[in-house]
């Protein structure tokens, strides 16, 4: 499986095809053209960035000259999926074709361009004589990802004075400017030349030839210095192909180790991925062993380890959840536990009475409450109605869901009720089947995830950002793919993170996934690594089908209830170990996984994104602090601001 993309990096295939496509965007209209292309004016086509040897070209091709893959299938089938392929464009077999008599392609050498000007969805091309030669109109998108791709290859830089102006680097000029001393000698030295072509994409390999001239040094090397992507592939292979046969893994590993490619891999940032097997769940017998005579639970850390490795036997799940969600406390004796439960029980019904005794008039005058109530009523009616516990008309459990959520509104009016929260509560009530206990367990869960429900979505955005950072480190190849396909906003993970994969796994699996995540093992934010593992597993599908943002989103949504939890957990744990055993673990990743930063900025890979990374890191560190502060303050009864 991984051979398919390694092959395409060989020099042979490059010689065959000549041009390396590094970007495409469909639905681009030429709204200004040179006279030679008057026929193409206002024609819809696809814009490409190609690389040939060490030169780059921007080429627009009318739709007729572009193969639209999957169009036939779409024609016959009404399946919602088949249509997606239509918007996957591939250059026709011969990249530049005159077979079509109607419209010609329009290719411009990047070296002829002085700068790009952006105006809304238009991209203007200004040549070195300062003449405006072409305008591309991005009909269904913006020129942003086009420019980002050029920037990724260090071919363009945004003007400091005019944010709509992008200056193309002049290779001739750069040549003069760069003295040998400025070149990054370390990187050149560390590159063991002959092995490289096997490790990277063709264009990266080739870019090395001209890197010192074109000023692409840092970026291209950055990727080359990360054959982690390659090794990662091996890891993926291991994980996906030999789930149940570890001897095979070893064989495979040995095989790979023997090849000369991997020598290079060895001193790379990401070590090989080792499979982590799931264990059996915590049993009643084990649980009883941890119980002292007076009812305390000894060694909660050990219990959590067992749970992390294998979940909890369904027969004692309800008992253990109460501990994991801070309803019962590990150190309490039976008597203390009873006492606490009784207090919490009373406390729950005290708060419940606060809303259940509101008069109609009070409710009418209390829009903040009314709005929350209205949303709750709508949502409980459509929460897990397919499982028996919540099935049928006039279901009492649906009412209990509603009551608990309304009481939570009274408990924490600021968080109130937001869509998604009913999804988080439903499995708890199902399992505990006790209103007050379920409420407090839900409170315990919400303490972990309340930022998901921020009014301004800051908590969600922050997590998507962390997801992006982890992806960049854990799977640079897929990250780069996302980046060049307008998908590095990671929005397709939104549903996953908002309700902790509630919609992605079956009801039974969700119980296990959540208890695993509640252990906080092996690190905080392990739920993000679950997402990384899922995406990692889909990488081939994304890349080979050339999915863009839309298709990735659809694909990800359609994984719902089709994934094997065991495999996902194993992969996530493997990735975790791969990351933390990396020799160059940057602080921005360490912080996400709950490790102390070691050397602020010192181990950052040099790149044009440095500023961005610094800023992001500062923001992240700040957010962590804020998280903590808010966590501490959130449940204080004294919060009185009303954000309506």
């Amino acid at each position, binding site marked *: 499986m991984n051979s398919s993309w390694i092959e395409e990096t060989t020099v042979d295939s490059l010689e065959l095809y000549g041009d390396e496509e590094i970007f495409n965007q469909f639905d681009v209209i030429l*709204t*200004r*053209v*040179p*006279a*030679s292309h008057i026929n193409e*004016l*206002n024609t*819809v086509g696809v814009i490409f960035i190609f690389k*040939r040897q*060490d*030169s780059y070209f921007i080429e627009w091709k009318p*739709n007729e000259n572009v193969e*639209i893959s999957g*169009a*036939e299938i*779409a*024609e016959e089938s*009404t399946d*919602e999926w088949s*249509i997606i392929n*239509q*918007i996957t464009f591939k250059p026709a077999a011969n990249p*530049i074709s005159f077979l079509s008599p109607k419209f010609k392609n*329009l290719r411009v*050498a990047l070296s*002829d361009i002085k700068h790009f000007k952006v105006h*809304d969805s238009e991209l203007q091309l200004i*040549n070195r004589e300062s*003449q*405006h*030669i072409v*305008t591309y109109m991005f009909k*269904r*998108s*913006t020129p942003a990802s086009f420019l980002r791709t050029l920037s990724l290859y260090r071919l363009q830089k945004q003007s400091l004075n005019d944010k709509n102006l992008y200056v193309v680097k002049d*290779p001739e000029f750069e040549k003069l400017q760069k003295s040998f001393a400025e070149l990054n000698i370390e990187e050149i030295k560390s590159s063991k030349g002959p092995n490289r072509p096997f490790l990277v994409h063709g264009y990266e390999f080739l870019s090395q030839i001209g890197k010192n001239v074109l000023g692409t040094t840092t970026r291209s090397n950055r990727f080359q210095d990360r054959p982690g992507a390659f090794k990662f592939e091996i890891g993926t292979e291991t994980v996906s192909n030999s789930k149940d046969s570890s001897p095979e893994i070893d064989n495979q590993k040995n095989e790979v180790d023997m090849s000369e490619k991997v020598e290079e891999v060895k001193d790379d940032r990401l070590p090989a991925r080792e499979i982590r097997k799931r264990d059996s769940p915590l049993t009643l017998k084990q649980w009883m062993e941890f119980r002292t005579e007076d009812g305390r639970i000894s060694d909660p850390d050990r219990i959590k380890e067992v749970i992390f490795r294998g979940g909890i036997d369904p027969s004692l799940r309800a008992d253990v959840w109460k501990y994991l969600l801070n309803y019962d406390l590990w150190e309490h004796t039976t008597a203390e536990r009873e006492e606490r439960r009784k207090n919490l029980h009373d406390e729950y019904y005290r708060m419940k009475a606060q809303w259940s005794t509101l008069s109609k008039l009070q409710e009418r005058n209390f829009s903040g409450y009314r709005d929350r109530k209205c949303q709750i009523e*709508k*949502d409980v009616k*459509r*929460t*897990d109605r397919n499982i028996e516990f919540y099935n049928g008309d006039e279901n009492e459990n649906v009412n209990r869901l509603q009551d608990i959520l309304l009481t939570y509104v009274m408990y924490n009016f600021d968080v109130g009720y937001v*869509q998604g929260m*009913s*999804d988080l509560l439903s499995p708890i009530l199902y399992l505990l089947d006790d209103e007050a206990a379920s409420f407090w367990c839900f409170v315990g869960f919400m303490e972990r995830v309340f930022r998901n*429900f*921020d009014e*301004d*979505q800051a908590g969600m*955005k922050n997590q998507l950002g962390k997801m992006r950072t982890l992806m960049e480190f854990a799977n640079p190849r897929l990250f780069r793919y996302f980046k060049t396909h307008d998908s590095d*906003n990671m*929005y*397709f993970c*939104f549903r996953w993170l*908002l*309700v902790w994969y509630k919609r992605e796994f079956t009801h039974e699996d969700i119980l296990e996934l959540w208890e695993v995540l509640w252990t906080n093992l092996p690190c905080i934010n392990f739920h993000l690594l679950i997402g990384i593992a899922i995406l990692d597993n889909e990488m081939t599908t994304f890349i080979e089908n050339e999915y863009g943002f*839309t298709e990735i*989103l*659809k694909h990800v*949504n359609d994984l719902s209830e089709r994934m094997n939890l065991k495999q996902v957990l194993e992969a996530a744990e493997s990735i975790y170990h791969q990351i933390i055993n990396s020799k160059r673990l940057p602080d921005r990743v360490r912080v996400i996984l709950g490790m102390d930063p070691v050397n602020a900025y010192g181990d950052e890979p040099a790149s044009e994104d440095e500023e961005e990374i610094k800023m992001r890191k500062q923001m992240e560190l700040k957010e962590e602090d804020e998280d903590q502060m808010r966590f501490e303050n959130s449940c204080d009864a004294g919060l009185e601001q009303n954000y309506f």
Partner: protein
Amino acid sequence: MATRKKVLLKVIILGDSSVGKTSLMNQYVNKRFSNQYKATIGADFLTKEVVVDDRVVTMQIWDTAGQERFQSLGVAFYRGADCCVLVFDTTAPNTFKNLDSWRDEFLIQASPRNPEHFPFVVLGNKIDLENRSVSTKRAQQWCQSKNDIPYFETSAKEGINVDIAFQTIAKNALAQETEDLDTTSGFPNITLNADNNPRPSNDGCQC
């Protein structure tokens, strides 16, 4: 037929929570109604091929979460929309009152090229229910005041008016596409030296 250019129309369905966005989409695409749709989280879409004015077009219909705060991520999904469908519940006046803000929010986030002429369609859903509280007249008046937005009263449950509404949506979306092309035709054509004949030869471009 095989050589005909394919058109993809992107349609966004917006409206308050629980007005029936997911149900309308599924009724139209899959001819199905279910009581068991969950609240939409994030965004999803379905596609359907339809024939409009003799052309085969693909509609990509986007369904979004209804609670207001989730709209701040909407921009990623609204981009490139060809038509926006505003849905309200004919039994819930608030959902009708909010149409204004849904429309405004869409125009801000999607920033279409031609906001005044961007095609919207309004659907008053759940007409199968008895406790109707937004009159046809009131809805029509609002639609007229907004540049004559087409208005349909639908029942996703019974499948009433759903097909005809989406036919209009497709038609207007397609018209929007075509218009977009027309409005760009006024640009002057300039002749320049960079007459790069895009020949696939190996004559090594100047680098």
